[in-house]
């Protein structure tokens, strides 16, 4: 179980880290980071389900519900960001300004995922597993932040 979860989470971390060094355009970096966030959410769903359905369950139905709702908010925020970003052909000052509030909604929803979803998990092993996915999410968000606010 631990290895099955560590393998895909390590995959996402690795591909996010490798993409930081590439020479893609800013819009392509944002696209890849959006894809990475999507994959991270998918992994989080799988981790959540496996924790809920293990015998005995490692998270309660209430904890799973909190996680599910929080993940849905992150997923929806990412969808909105992706749909707006893909209407642009390049990222300049104007398009970055348009994307910034949508990006901030993603970061706020991830903070909510941590505060209302992850921190509430009583089983420490389960909490650590879900928190690991949050790490990969945060790494992808850092890429988008550097694109929107920096020179990356």
């Amino acid at each position, binding site marked *: 179980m631990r290895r099955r979860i560590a393998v895909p989470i390590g995959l996402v971390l690795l591909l996010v880290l490798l993409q930081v060094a590439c020479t893609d355009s800013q819009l392509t970096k944002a696209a890849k980071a*959006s894809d990475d966030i999507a994959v991270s959410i998918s992994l989080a769903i799988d981790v959540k389900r496996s924790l809920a359905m293990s015998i005995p369950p490692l998270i309660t139905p209430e904890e799973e519900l909190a996680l599910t709702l929080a993940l849905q908010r992150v997923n929806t925020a990412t969808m909105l960001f992706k749909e707006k970003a893909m209407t642009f052909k390049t990222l300049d000052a104007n398009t970055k300004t348009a994307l910034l509030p949508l990006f901030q909604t993603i970061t706020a929803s991830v903070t909510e995922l941590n505060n209302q979803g992850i921190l509430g998990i009583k089983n420490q092993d389960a909490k650590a597993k879900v928190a690991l996915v949050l790490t990969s999410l945060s790494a992808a968000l850092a890429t988008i932040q550097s694109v929107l606010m920096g020179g990356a």
Partner: protein
Amino acid sequence: MAILLALLPQLIQFVPVFVAAIAHIKAQSGMTTDQIFAAAGLVLDANNQKLVDDLKRLGYI
């Protein structure tokens, strides 16, 4: 050398991670920006469906 041999079983378990990571990066590298966005959209849509299914299972909706 002894340390490497001791770590080998732990490192080997990550070989699939690296292989899968390289495959994913290669797949993304071969895509246009639009294609990457489209791929992200497919995953996000699938995520949403899974989450809705989970909310139904949990009796929330």
